[in-house]
């Protein structure tokens, strides 16, 4: 399972430290938030839904990080944007590529 995840995230990389990193990111989000697997999956699903109201995104690249700096903890939601939805009211804020195959990344940061 983790090998599959590794391939997906890191292409052909066979460095075991990359596996270590992705496994740690996965488990530390749970440890730090205190959310169960199911709750995390639910949160993720709802976040994707909200963002998809305004953007077409690459769901594969969607990523949630719970990031700690010296004295603040930040929830980082990282979402590769393929294109904005034509009618999206919030789209002005995001830079949108001319070419539809390019992707931009929308990062939503929130202090916890």
């Amino acid at each position, binding site marked *: 399972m983790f090998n599959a995840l590794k391939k997906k995230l890191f292409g052909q*990389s*066979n*460095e*075991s*430290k*990359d596996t*270590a*990193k992705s*496994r*740690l*990111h996965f*488990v*530390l989000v749970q*440890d*730090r938030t205190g959310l169960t697997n199911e709750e995390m999956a639910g949160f993720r699903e709802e976040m994707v839904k909200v963002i998809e109201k305004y953007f077409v995104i690459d769901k594969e690249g969607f990523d949630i990080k719970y*990031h*700690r*700096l*010296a*004295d603040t903890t*930040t929830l980082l939601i990282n979402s590769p944007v393929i294109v904005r939805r034509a009618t999206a009211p919030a789209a002005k804020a995001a830079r949108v590529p001319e070419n539809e195959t390019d992707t931009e990344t929308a990062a939503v940061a929130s202090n916890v």
Partner: protein
Amino acid sequence: MNTRRDNGSGKKDLGEVIVITSGKGGVGKTTTTASLGAALALRGQRVLVVDADIGLRNLDMMLGLENRIVFNVVDVAKKICKPAQAIIKSKKSNNLYLLPASQTDDKDVVDEAEVRYVLDQFRREFHYILVDSPAGIEQGFRNACAGADSAIVVTTPEVSAIRDADRVVGLLSSKGIEARLIINRIDFEMVRRGDMLSVRDVQDILGIEILGVVERDDQIISAANCGEPVVYNQKSKAGQAFTRIAARVCGEQIAIPSFDGGSLWSRITKKLGVNA
């Protein structure tokens, strides 16, 4: 970094208490306590190392003092002896003292208030008091943290140690205790091969200040065999690393080599910039 004695406050006579902790066992807490204690003493600081691993006494052997123990930390807490009777001077240094753990008692024989009382008996006599914490996050850990001004979290670059370190950093921060990180037993050859997390990787994951990096070094084991902290062997990489860590504890700015492209400082600066 922030020695109370140097900051010109009215409390200049009080030593700084630093707890050395990790969550996971066997990552190098006791080695760090002994080596950092000896390195600080070599710099002329008066240092007390306290073994808070009650029931699993270890620090005495790392310092070669196991034959000299009469009283211990529990005796001081319970006022069975005078504080000065329980501490043992190191054979190698007039500045370094040990307050041993009790080997026969249970971890919860003392509480946090008693630990604070014990530390207060020594704060005036020492510049630094290093408390060697037991593994785990239970009563023994809470006792070791009681009265600490700051913490040093020790981890190895391995997933289980990092996960436990992260847990401990969270618990310390909820107690208002600032934590700095020592990455121990790193093998730069494995890092180069991509088979071990790098200093930068660990820093990225844990997000706390790095106080030092110690390589995997056989000299640590021979030093432990002889009961002489590795810093007395300045040819050893680990000895040099702990000497640099002692300098940083005293507030010297020495860059931490990251061995994986770019200095760690530029990385940190960049990070802060991005998040500012």
